[in-house]
């Protein structure tokens, strides 16, 4: 047994923090505020980030017989998860008090979910990947339904859970078939098997690959496995929605990249066309349906489907050109989406979700900072330069052109055009319409403002000076082996 805990250090850090939060929660009177728990959680995430930074020296280690990898790829995604968790916690502090969601459990579940994600990004073994996936999923199912007085949240949680369990079935069956064909769950051995006997794969190996693909597509919210997304996203507490649409999606794509795109690349030719269809369908359907929404939250849910479609472009493009844009896009997407959800959170009142376009009316002049920040996120999501979203899309489309998938690039830009319609509608509401929420009733939480500020800085910085993040993405991708 190859016991090496170094690769697990960030995960252990976050896990310990979660346990501390749960433990400390027991000793706080229910009637008191529990801000200290948020502080512990943020501290733990910060420490984990420091550990990532220390480990981030380009070392390659593996542990537990090559089932956990420590490479820049895993660390890159770990940082995205830590960032998403931290911004989510920052923007929930006030929200939880308003809605009466239990704080201790909430923070602990966010942290547990983060542990699962970190495992997913580091997993080099299908069983470890599955463990991580379930740790994440179960925590997120609970988070979705944590606002117990809201029937929408309960419905969302139920739907998410049932559909998620279904997808888990696909994944497990796929893992079983692959194990049956290759005799291993370790990706290195599976990959070696496939390269050794390129012509003698049993049919059920390919079937197993496709079942994995379906499971991943479900978790990433790709068409045609996207049905759960709008309902789950709309019903979940707003900060959780932000967390789901960034971190859960990034975790799914992390595992997708390492396991399907990289290790199972011999199957590329088999699923090139289905993936191409999925990418186009995801972009187009997501954008078309987003246009028809009247709720900004639901619009962002569909827009997150559309963005999953953009991320799938580099997946189709393949490992030669697609790696860097995939990682970079997820990074840019994280900042702008978390920012948009933080703004949405700050609008919410005690019982009213306030996520319709009409609630945004006049926001730009009532709360200039919120309005300007939200405009920035919307313009970035729509792909206006010089913001992060443009840089992300630019490299995604570039990879499609480089790899000769000109059609994907053209369909991608036309989809961007569609998306302009609904992103600008938010700006229309904020700056060009009157009415909306009365100025007084906003929750002026410094923590939400901090979260928004971080997201603004990220969105602008990655757009104007993306060089270092780009080279880091490249480094991360090429650390896969």
């Amino acid at each position, binding site marked *: 047994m190859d016991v090496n805990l170094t690769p697990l250090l960030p995960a252990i850090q976050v896990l310990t923090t979660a346990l501390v939060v749960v433990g400390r929660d027991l000793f706080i009177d229910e009637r008191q505020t529990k801000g200290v728990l948020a502080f512990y959680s943020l501290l733990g995430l910060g420490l984990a980030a420091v550990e990532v930074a220390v480990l981030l020296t380009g070392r390659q280690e593996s542990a537990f017989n090559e089932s956990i990898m420590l490479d820049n790829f895993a660390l890159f995604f770990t940082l995205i998860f830590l960032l998403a968790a931290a911004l989510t916690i920052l923007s929930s502090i006030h929200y939880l008090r308003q809605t009466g969601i239990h704080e201790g459990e909430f923070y602990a579940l966010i942290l547990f979910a983060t542990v699962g994600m970190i495992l997913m990004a580091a997993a080099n073994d299908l069983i470890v990947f599955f463990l991580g996936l379930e740790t994440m999923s179960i925590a997120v199912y609970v988070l979705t339904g944590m606002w117990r007085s809201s029937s929408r949240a309960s419905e969302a949680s139920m739907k998410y859970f049932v559909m998620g369990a279904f997808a888990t079935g696909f994944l497990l069956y796929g893992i079983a078939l692959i194990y049956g064909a290759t005799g291993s769950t370790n990706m290195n051995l599976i990959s070696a098997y496939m390269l050794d006997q390129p012509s003698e794969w049993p049919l059920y190996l390919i079937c197993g690959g496709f079942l994995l693909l379906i499971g991943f597509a479900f978790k990433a919210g790709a068409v045609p496995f996207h049905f759960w997304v709008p309902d789950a996203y709309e019903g979940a507490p707003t900060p959780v929605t932000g967390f789901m649409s960034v971190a859960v999606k990034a975790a799914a794509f992390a595992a997708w990249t390492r396991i399907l795109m990289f290790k199972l690349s011999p199957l590329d030719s088999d699923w090139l066309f289905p993936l191409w269809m999925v990418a186009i369908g995801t972009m187009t359907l997501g954008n078309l349906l987003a246009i028809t929404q009247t709720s900004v939250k639901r619009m962002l849910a569909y827009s997150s489907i559309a963005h999953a479609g953009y991320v799938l472009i580099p997946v189709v493009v393949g490992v030669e050109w697609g790696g860097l844009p995939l990682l970079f896009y997820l990074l840019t997407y994280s900042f702008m989406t978390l920012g948009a959800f933080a703004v949405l959170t700050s609008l919410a009142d005690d019982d009213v979700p306030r996520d319709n376009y009409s609630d945004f009316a006049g926001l730009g*002049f009532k709360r200039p900072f919120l309005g300007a920040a939200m405009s920035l996120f919307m*313009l970035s999501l729509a792909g*206006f*330069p*010089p913001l992060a979203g*443009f840089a992300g899309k*630019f*490299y995604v*489309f*570039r990879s499609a*052109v*480089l790899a000769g998938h*000109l059609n994907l*690039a*053209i369909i991608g*830009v*036309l989809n*961007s*055009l569609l998306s*302009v*319609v609904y992103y*600008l509608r938010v*700006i*229309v509401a904020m*700056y*060009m319409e009157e009415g909306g929420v009365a100025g007084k009733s906003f929750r002026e939480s410094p923590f939400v403002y901090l979260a928004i500020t971080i997201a603004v800085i990220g969105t602008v910085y990655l757009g104007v000076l*993306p*060089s270092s993040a*780009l*080279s880091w993405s*490249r480094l991360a991708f090429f650390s896969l082996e």
Partner: protein
Amino acid sequence: MAAHGFGALTILLAIPAIGAVLLLFVPRRQTGALFAAALLAAGGEFLWSLEVFRRFDAGNGAMQLIERVPWMPGFGIQYIVGIDGISIFLVLLTTLLMPLAILASWTVRDRVKEYLIFMLLLETGMLGAFVALDLFLFYVFWEVMLVPMYFLIGVWGGTRRIYAALKFVLYTMAGSLLMLVAILYLATRHAQVEQVLTFDLLHLYNLHLPLQQQTWLFLAFALSFAIKVPLFPFHTWLPDAHVEAPTAGSVILAAVLLKLGTYGFLRFALPLFPEAALAALPWIIALSVIGIIYGAVVAMMQSDIKKLVAYSSVSHLGFVMLGLFALNLQGVQGALYQMLNHGLSTGALFLLVGMIYDRRHTRMIDAFGGLWQQVPVFSAILLFVTFSSIGLPGLNGFVGEFLILMGSFARAPAWTASAATGVILGAIYMLWMFRRVIFGPLNNPENQKLQDLNGRELAILAPILILIVLMGVYPQPFLSRMQPAVEASLQRILTAPATPVALNQNMSGEQNSDGR
């Protein structure tokens, strides 16, 4: 001249942006201070552009004052800016009109702070697009421009402002996103052929692609620029945007934004894809002429003065396109000159329409009549600008139109003859509008209370009027400075290794145009 590091042009781009940032810190209620700060930034920008003009060597047709700074070095993306005889005048036009437009916005009383910030950001965006020499950088500025204009129309516009603003953005983006793919493809091809990954325009000029690839790339670029120009039939966003935009927005839109389309053809689409451009030439000339006549006829039918001026822009820009695609010295120089003329005269027309609208809150031609008795100064200036717009000899419009028609006659005589009727139609609709607004009996009691132009308004119009005369009677200083750059550009377009058919075409064009 190529300098590494930032220099004069970066300062040119930075001044309005810094002004916009400083405006953030001026208290919202102090509108006077806000206007003063914005005017200071725009005025300082104009002075600095004069300094750039002083440093500019007029005898040289090549790019000057080039600055290069690596931006995303792994991807061949650089910050490259430079200026030549083509862009210098457009830069000056922009920096001249911007302070005037801000001064003309004095009547904006609502949300002044945001308004002025967007105006200054718009200026940086437009100037950036004129001086960018890296395709990525150009695209960034090209899109950046959209956002402030979107806000200016959408927040401070008329009743249908939201619709007009969205239409403006969607039309422009529809073109520009395809151009983005074309830019990516072009850079990729360059990397494959020349083994150098770069978005540097001056390098990409030297890439020679097969005609079929050129055609697709040209179409993508041309669509983007044609929408901006706007070339018939891509013009439908323009009347909406113009009518709904606030006065200063209309002025900038007509005077500068539309020029970015024609500038794009001259700087990018034509020299990058010369053979495809020559192949597309008959089509574009046809569309330009249709646009000239269509714009004029529709303008004649309008009852709203602003809409009339908007359609007249379609017609005038058709002339500019006709001149550009004549692809000879007179035509292109005339087109460039006409771009400046149109900026001045249409800018002035929109300013005048805005001034009368501020007083009467209507722009309907029926609502006026007999204004000469009541507001003689306004009427006289309107007459003057009308003459400039219809190309009366002695004023600037004549020089440009004459050169364009001379140039294009050599290229396409029949189409030019049809285009010439556009000149007559232009005179008809402008003078007819003028007669209905200014002459006749002063019946409407509302009009009997009209005040004539005040000092601020005269100060806005004076520089434009002076330039209209100056450029009409003494075009030589302008033309001589444009000539080397236009010649260099034409040489790049016409000496590209061409297919035999295209070669014949441009040979005959050259011979005809020698008879000047």
